[in-house]
């Protein structure tokens, strides 16, 4: 019986011009956005790989020079664009994807396309994620709002119920019909997505489970909209009321909630501006050890300690190069300042993230946004993880270079020069993203919000079938 009702719903929908047009529009938008996302992902990745190789090559080929000069010369590293970022670019355009690593300084991750974007782009780029999160719910609303309110208005509901159909059967039949109709629209794009993920890249083994988890998240999310649409349609006397209520729900989720979440997070957990932040770090560093300044009193103390350790009279008598030690001491002081400031900033950002995720319990669109970005590997958490990973590499790099200066530059002092073997000996920077279960665990709240929303709305639909009004 449910299938019979579903079949009629599909036939009715497919013959309706409204459905055909919206199907065409959504298919075109979804396919275009996914295809464009995929192409720009491939281009960006190739470009990044080239830039990364070039940067490394420049570092390797800098010739004979003082290792500390090489540390100043530095190296660019890039956050690899994860394959699923073609579905959801997330915050990458805002947080940046590359960083210059050098001695003494912890540079901010830069290369932010959003900074160069025109005002028009601020309205939102056409991405598969925005189609899935905003446009598909709208499509569901347009297809489902007359489901029962329309039959009530037309009078067919009286006739259907006079036949002795269980109201629950009718609702389930309609739900199944709508799900199938929607699948007809989404299937081509899904097929495209699957082929991209499969044929896609070397990381497909890693991408697969993420893609599946993402799919599960979107199924939950769209299910919520379907349940809400049916619920409202069941309870509205006219289609007009149903449509207005549902559009209100959509506007609340799509337009108001994201701004509300950002403002609320910023107000409850204030973070320093970029300028204040760098200024605070600069001030603290100035108050510390300066490895380049021989007049620095702390360097003087370090010198005395070192002389004592090697039982030497002067710096020139030391079996090692004191410059290396002094520079590393300055470096480590700087690192402790960075750890303090960035630690506080990351904690604040983390709390803002948690707040946004918690708001997902009120607005499902916020929950899916966080979930989708996290699974695509383009959320805030991941950009911080990348920044930390790059920083660890920077410290290793600088430490290795300073050590070389310390151990091999004893007799030459600042005149010591190392060769390309040293530069080439540095390990490659490889950003290792966290495993799937970590990404899923980080999003427990978003998952819980989606599951809760779906079960509550489905529960309400079931309860409403018992009191379904004829007119």
């Amino acid at each position, binding site marked *: 019986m449910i299938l019979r009702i579903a079949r009629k719903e599909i*036939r*009715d929908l497919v013959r309706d011009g409204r459905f055909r047009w919206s199907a065409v529009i959504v298919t075109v938008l979804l396919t275009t956005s996914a295809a464009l996302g995929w192409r720009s992902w491939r281009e960006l990745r190739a470009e990044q790989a080239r830039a990364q190789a070039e940067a490394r090559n420049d570092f390797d080929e800098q010739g004979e020079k003082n290792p500390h000069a090489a540390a100043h010369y530095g190296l660019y590293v890039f956050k690899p664009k994860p394959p699923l970022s073609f579905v959801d670019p997330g915050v990458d355009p805002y947080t940046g994807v590359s960083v210059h690593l050098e001695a003494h300084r912890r540079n901010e991750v830069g290369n932010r396309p959003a900074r160069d974007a025109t005002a028009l782009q601020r309205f939102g780029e056409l991405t598969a994620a925005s189609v899935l999160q905003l446009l598909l719910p709208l499509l569901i609303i347009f297809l489902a709002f007359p489901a029962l309110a329309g039959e009530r208005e037309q*009078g*067919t509901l*009286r*006739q259907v119920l*006079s*036949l*002795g159909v269980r109201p629950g059967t009718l609702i389930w039949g309609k739900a199944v019909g709508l799900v199938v109709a929607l699948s007809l629209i989404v299937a081509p794009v899904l097929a495209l997505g699957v082929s991209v993920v499969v044929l896609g890249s070397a990381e497909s083994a890693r991408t697969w489970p993420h893609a599946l988890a993402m799919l599960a998240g979107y199924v939950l999310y769209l299910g919520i909209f379907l349940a809400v649409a049916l619920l409202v349609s069941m309870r509205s006397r006219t289609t007009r009321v149903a449509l207005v209520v549902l559009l209100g729900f959509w506007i609340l989720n799509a337009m108001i909630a994201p701004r509300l979440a950002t403002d609320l997070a910023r107000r409850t957990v204030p973070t320093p501006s970029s300028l204040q932040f760098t200024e605070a770090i600069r001030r603290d560093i100035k108050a510390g050890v300066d490895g380049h300044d021989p007049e620095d009193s702390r360097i003087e103390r370090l010198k005395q300690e070192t002389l004592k350790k090697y039982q030497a009279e002067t710096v020139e008598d030391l079996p090692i190069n004191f410059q290396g030690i002094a520079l590393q001491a300055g470096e480590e002081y700087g690192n402790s300042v960075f750890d303090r400031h960035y630690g506080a900033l990351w904690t604040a950002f983390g709390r803002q993230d948690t707040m946004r995720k918690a708001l997902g319990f009120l607005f499902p669109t916020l929950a899916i946004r966080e979930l989708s970005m996290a699974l695509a590997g383009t959320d805030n958490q991941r950009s911080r993880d990348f920044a930390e990973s790059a920083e660890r590499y920077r410290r290793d790099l600088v430490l290795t270079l300073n050590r070389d200066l310390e151990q091999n530059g004893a007799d030459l002092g600042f005149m010591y020069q190392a060769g390309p073997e040293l530069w080439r000996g540095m390990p490659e920077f490889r950003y290792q993203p966290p495993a799937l279960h970590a990404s899923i665990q980080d999003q427990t709240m978003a998952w819980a919000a989606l599951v809760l929303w779906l079960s509550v709305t489905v529960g309400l639909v079931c309860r409403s079938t018992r009191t379904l009004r004829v*007119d």
Partner: protein
Amino acid sequence: MLEARSLTKAYNGFTALNALDLTVKAGEIFCLLGANGAGKTTTINLFLNFITPSSGTVAIKGIDVVANPLETKKFVAYIPETVMLYKNLSGLENLSYFAALAGQGSLSKTELRDYLRQAGLPEDAADRRVGFYSKGMRQKVGIAIALAKRAESLLLDEPTSGLDPKASNEFANLLRTLRDRGVAVLMATHDLFHAKETGTRVGIMKRGQMVASLGTDEVGHADLERIYLEHMHD
């Protein structure tokens, strides 16, 4: 078959139906006459459990409608004043869907076409979308649904209002055929002539009460009209 005992429906102070007693046996056509708002549609809605009675009982085939709404609906077919259909589907597809919902999902296309023919729908109209149907054609699909359901009783709410005389007449003939098969019919109508012609009994309703009930063979056309008008005068 169809039975109401002291059936009353009140909406915050307003009594739409007051202590109605009514029995329609198999093979009877009971016509409810009366002005708009007299309680005719309320009575039919109560038999369909679209509204619940304030007091009294309503039963179909001896089964209480309030306690077993789904069970009792198996035995009735309902034809409203205007049969509403799905405009994107053809007459045949509409019938097929409604019949399936009524538990007759196994009917073949030929059988369904046969019901449409019995109801008087022109053969070439069956495959056209009902968006193009006239009111008479839609009523005929409604009748075909009732026929396909093989219900033992019919609830008709002014089914012939707005039909041309020929269509009304065809409808009356069909009702007689059903009556002869032993179907119990309860019909709300304004049409005194057809009530007298096809009905076995008529009940005159006024402000929620049945003020008169008589067999159609007891009175002539003129008498029925006179009695009706007398009751309508205050």
